[in-house]
């Protein structure tokens, strides 16, 4: 049972890192990035390539770096020119980007499943009571905790964090107060994108790499973001943990209908509190 809860935490942690990137971007730009799952996938593939030359930590650094640059480009060439349009326009354009990115990755790395070796330093298991648990999975949980702690510290104490929180409440007023929302947005989209890359690369040893690997986790992260309330950081955290557990317990105990369980939770939340579980 403890093992199951830990596995749920691993998945919940990955979901959190991915979803909080969506929340960051939504907060500043008021758009939902449908290419976020593709960024997750690109992060995993970039990590796969870098891992062969630079080792695991090099791969993590490379993914974060490449995805940050991609994020800045995404903000500059997609979100900024489209900010006066309906949010749906950006949704459709990022959906088009998803199709293009999957095709690019398929062209470079092929359609076959690739596997990312578990880094040697974390390949062992540790004993927990009478069963054992892979160390690497604990590392994933630790990374998620660090991201959550770092992000909340940054949002609460730094000036940029203050601006981000202000912008996610009301971007227009924040701009009028003299905050350069354009520069802030480039930073925030780069961060959101880098977080997608980070979740991709640390998830890579647990998954098989394929160009379409981003779609199922994107869909679960959509459920997280809607359940948590669009734009709520705390909501995303709580929802990711709960849905991570439900997903995992579902797969173990009721595999036939596992995919329905997060949905049922979401429907319940939408009926009970349409703006998400956490009051913002």
């Amino acid at each position: 049972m403890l093992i199951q809860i830990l596995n749920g935490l691993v998945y919940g942690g990955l979901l959190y890192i991915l979803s909080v990137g969506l929340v960051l971007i939504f907060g500043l730009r008021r758009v939902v990035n449908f290419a976020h799952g593709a960024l997750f996938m690109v992060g995993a593939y970039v990590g796969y390539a870098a891992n062969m030359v630079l080792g695991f930590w090099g791969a993590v650094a490379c993914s974060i770096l490449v995805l940050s640059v991609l994020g800045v480009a995404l903000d500059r060439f997609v979100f900024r020119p489209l900010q006066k349009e309906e949010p749906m326009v950006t949704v459709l354009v990022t959906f088009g980007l998803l199709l293009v990115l999957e095709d690019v990755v398929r062209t470079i790395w092929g359609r076959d499943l690739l596997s990312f070796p578990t880094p040697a330093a974390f390949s062992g298991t540790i004993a927990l009571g009478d069963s054992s648990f892979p160390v690497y999975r604990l590392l994933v949980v630790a990374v998620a905790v660090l991201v959550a702690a770092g992000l909340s510290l940054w949002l609460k104490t730094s000036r940029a964090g203050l601006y981000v929180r202000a912008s996610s409440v009301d971007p227009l007023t924040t701009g009028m107060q003299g905050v350069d929302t354009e520069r802030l947005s480039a930073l925030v989209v780069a961060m959101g994108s880098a977080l997608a890359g980070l979740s991709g690369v640390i998830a890579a040893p647990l998954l098989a790499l394929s160009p379409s690997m981003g779609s199922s986790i994107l869909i679960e992260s959509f459920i997280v973001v809607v359940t948590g309330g669009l734009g709520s950081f705390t909501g995303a955290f709580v929802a990711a943990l709960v849905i991570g557990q439900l997903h995992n317990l579902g797969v173990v105990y009721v595999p036939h209908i596992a995919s329905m369980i997060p949905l049922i939770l979401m429907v319940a939340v939408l009926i009970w509190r349409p703006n998400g579980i956490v009051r913002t």
Partner: protein
Amino acid sequence: MSETSNLSAALVEAPAARRGLGFPVTLAFVAAAGALVPGHIGSALLLTLLTQATIGAVLATSVGFLIRQNGLVSFGHAAFFGGAAYIVALAAQGGGVSAEVVVIAAVLVPVVVAFAIAFVMLRVSGVAFSMLTLAVAEALHELMMRWRELANGEDGLPVRLPSSLFGLPVSTFQRPETMFVVCWIVLMALIAGLWLLSRSHLGTLTLAIQDNEERARFIGYETLVPRAIVFALSAGIAAMGGVLFALYNGFVTPDVLHWSLSGEALVMAIIGGARTLWGPALGAVVFFFLRDAAGSYTEHWQALIGIVLITVTVALPTGLSGAIGLVANRVRGGRHG
């Protein structure tokens, strides 16, 4: 005012006397011309492609109708299309019920389900609605993949049909030269029905709600039920496409529930332009022919369609049908062209 501005783009600028009749007359002409197509096409390959495109057009029409009438973009219409196809296949496995009843139920069940879930899904904003449609559809896809005892997982199910359906020999639905005519008639009847609906009270009311929900509520209208009805009708149209697909194909796999099919339907609707009722159908035909042509000299179909989607969304928001309407006005000498 709102009625005028929302009539199809090609008709808005037409003289008032023609406004009422132009659309049905043109539609009747296109329908008759289409029905004569099989007699004049020798190529079985082309006819097969046209039949697939027409089934795709039914699905694209349902997605476009939801955009036009509710302003909502669905990333999950494969759930209704594939759901209906699975109902046909599963009921045929079980047997005991007449095939006609099964076909009708395959359309009605998605309508009822859509009407019920609309009350939950419509509580969220437009973008969140799109995210939810994707999530709900993908859950159904997973269910059919994992529940092997019910739906045989990835391998799919054959559609077993009796020798006749609605008084027609079942081969009518399986040979492209006759099935094309069946699909074409369904598509034309749907577009005609939607045209009537868009002129009805429900049609104008949902447009008003889309424009400003609060104002519509203030005037005294209930705003959730009309939108739920539109969502349910849209689901029903997608389900009809799914039934046609199951009859024609004779086989269903979880691919008919996959999000990429929902995405394709959306791309068709956007390329064709959802401002008009016929735009998505046109988009579907263009999509299928483009895919067929691209398939022979590039493997990068997916990237190509992504680029087309981005280009059309940014540069031509009213789609092909909008562009055609514009050109038609020019030719007619309209001042606003």
